[in-house]
């Protein structure tokens, strides 16, 4: 069952009044994947995650976790799913270790889970806060407890809804390495984030939601390779009037010092050489040259804009 499906989402619809929060979402996530769920605010990411966790009841369609339907086989589905909610929620009555112990208890775990709780406390750098009331923790520490709560029953599928929102650089690095370790231990990871470099760094495959619809679903590499993927910028001292007409439409800007020409390139290696050949044949002298790679952000902006 190593290569089975961790998550299946079949034609799921959910409306909140006039808002079509999920409009026919349909895709699957393989076991062992590191999956990114991206999209602008209000795209439906949290709604989809909450539907998996049973916090949102969908209008139609089916969702399952490790092959168990989240509605009809909710006990099996939920015991295999760990969710880190987007909001920093906590129960102010309890201390950190208690919070984790009760959470494990809700999943029916007894004494045997206690060493794992200690390990989690260490792992999340919370060991010295174990007896501290949740109220007295900083935001980043609360976030780590949330992650601990999601992992306390060792679920094969872990869903993190913006785990690094409002977290400092240091902690973000720590969380990344923790999440990477979970992934290499065999957990399936589903991550939502607004930090595209985070998705680029971590995820194998990425889905982009926009207004309740799936606008892209691809491996990170293929997503990055979409559309215009590189731009070549060339600076020249050549006066504008001496530029051959064939290059006139490439002029991006004219300053006192130079003229900037830009060329949109495909992925093929040869295209840079083609441009340079054209430039040389035209007798234009080059003072600076720079290649710019599109990142996930450009692709994201394009895809979510196209859908408008």
């Amino acid at each position, binding site marked *: 069952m190593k290569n089975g499906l961790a998550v299946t989402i079949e034609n799921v619809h959910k409306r909140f009044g006039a808002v079509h929060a999920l409009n026919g979402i349909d895709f699957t996530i393989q076991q062992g994947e590191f999956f990114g769920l991206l999209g602008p605010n209000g795209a439906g990411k949290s709604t989809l995650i909450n539907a998996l966790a049973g916090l*949102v009841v969908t209008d139609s369609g089916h969702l399952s976790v490790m092959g168990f339907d989240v509605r009809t086989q909710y006990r099996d589905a939920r015991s295999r799913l760990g969710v880190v909610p987007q909001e920093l929620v906590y129960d102010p*009555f309890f201390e950190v270790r208690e919070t984790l112990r009760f959470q494990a208890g809700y*999943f029916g775990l007894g004494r045997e889970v206690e060493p794992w709780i200690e390990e989690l406390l260490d792992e999340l750098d919370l060991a010295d806060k174990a007896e501290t009331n949740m109220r007295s923790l900083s935001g980043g520490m609360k976030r780590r407890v949330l992650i601990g709560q999601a992992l306390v029953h060792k679920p094969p599928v872990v869903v993190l809804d913006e785990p690094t929102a409002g977290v400092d650089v240091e902690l973000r690095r720590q969380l990344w390495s923790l999440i990477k370790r979970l992934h290499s231990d065999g957990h399936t990871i589903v991550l939502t984030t607004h930090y595209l470099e985070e998705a680029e760094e971590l995820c194998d495959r990425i889905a982009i939601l926009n207004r309740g619809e799936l606008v892209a679903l691809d491996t990170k590499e293929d997503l990055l390779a979409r559309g215009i993927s590189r731009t070549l910028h060339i600076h020249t001292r050549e006066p504008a009037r001496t530029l051959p007409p064939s290059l006139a439409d490439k002029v991006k800007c004219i300053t006192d010092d130079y003229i900037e020409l830009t060329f949109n390139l495909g992925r093929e290696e040869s295209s840079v050489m083609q441009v340079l050949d054209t430039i040389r044949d035209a007798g234009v002298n080059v003072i600076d040259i720079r290649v710019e790679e599109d990142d996930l952000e450009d692709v994201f902006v394009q895809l979510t804009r196209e859908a408008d």
Partner: protein
Amino acid sequence: MAGVLWLFWKELVRFSKVAFQTVMAPIITSLLFLVVFSHVLEGRVTVYEGVSYTEFLVPGLIMMSVIQNGFANSSSSLIQSKITGNLVFVLITPISYFEFFVAYVAASIVRGLMVGAGILLVALILVDVPVHSLTVIVTFALLASAILGALGIIAAIWADRYDQMAAFQNFIIMPLSFLSGVFYSIHSLPSFWQTLSQFNPFFYMIDGFRYGFFGVSDVPITTSLSICLIALTLLSSLTLVILKSGYKLRA
């Protein structure tokens, strides 16, 4: 240990952490009522033959506290978890809606009985209260705290804000528990109020509970028992239907 037991245990730990407020305070309040009312009215009012007013008052005060604390426990815990959002940690677990119901109601029962037993123990220092039937006493305390535990769940699900919850408590639970014959027998009321009291379910809880102490009551014990059982069945069913639907808990 099953998940439901951990949820029950969590609820017990929650109110124990603030035991001064959740257990001690109601005991002290009831004893103040007892001291003041018995001082003022002792010797002037006789409700049942051979029962002093102070003795008469004790079961009513206990039951009033059982009612109020049974309600307070489930309602305040649930509304806090709902409004602060930490209820999701329970909702994403394999715990079923039925188990959820059982855990919250059981915790209400425990708190109701603890407060009730506390008042009784301290009252016994001050007055000699007879015990006619311990079984009847325990049965009515269990029924009342369970009924109010269920009602607390309904109120907490219905209310969107703390002030709505407070309104429920101040305009429904408090008046009904005060006007249920804690301080008097309904036979001493004008007939209009007597009739009205018969529609107050809390009246039957107190009347049956009092029977457990004195062996006398305003209405037959079978009537109060039946009404409490019916109330428990109806409210539990309603609570379970609401929980099953996910109303206001699952979007």
